[in-house]
């Protein structure tokens, strides 16, 4: 069975640009969450979506936005990129919207902002 997939695997952008990251959950999973992992730190929660609705939002600026599509895949958008946005962006899927359910993580997208 295919796990959580993310694209692209690596991305290089310059300050001020915008970026779109994509995530496909495990088949049958309706919840997708996004995390930012800066080098040397634990992941930081950005968003959770369930059934195309936002169910949770972490402490990130409005430059960060996301959406979930009818097939439960998801996009994370970041506008006006800053150097500090350089990180590994992780997507996780689960069967339901509760964080108590096990989340399955993708390999991540490594974003570098120059």
């Amino acid at each position, binding site marked *: 069975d295919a*796990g*959580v997939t993310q694209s692209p695997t690596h991305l290089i952008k310059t300050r001020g640009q915008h970026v779109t990251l994509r995530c496909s959950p495990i088949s049958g999973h309706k919840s997708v969450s996004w995390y930012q992992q800066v080098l*040397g*730190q*634990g*992941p*930081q*929660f950005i968003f*959770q979506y369930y059934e195309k609705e936002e*169910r*949770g939002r*972490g402490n990130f600026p409005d430059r960060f936005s996301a959406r979930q599509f009818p097939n439960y895949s998801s996009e994370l958008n970041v506008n006006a990129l800053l150097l500090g946005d350089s990180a590994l962006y*992780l997507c*996780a899927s689960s069967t339901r*919207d*509760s*964080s*108590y359910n*096990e*989340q*399955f*993580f*993708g*390999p*991540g997208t490594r974003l570098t902002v120059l």
Partner: protein
Amino acid sequence: AQSVTQLDSHVSVSEGTPVLLRCNYSSSYSPSLFWYVQHPNKGLQLLLKYTSAATLVKGINGFEAEFKKSETSFHLTKPSAHMSDAAEYFCVVIPGGNYQLIWGAGTKLIIKP
């Protein structure tokens, strides 16, 4: 405020010896607690979780953790380390009634041959 503290950024043990990775949490509510492992260039994988059932939780690959409310701790242990255990380990807390996972900074486990 809810938080997670992993007391060691690096732990180094010899193969075949016990492993102890320490985690303390603070939470205003009855928390759920998890340990995740991240191998190099691989996704995060759930090792085990505590959700107010038995305080001693057994996970995959021989790992287990004990929830101690009086000490606000959830330390991860394994009786005998294997080379394949070398990875980064994250302690995670979900404060009661909240969707948001709060992650520790991680402990890098190094296994010496």
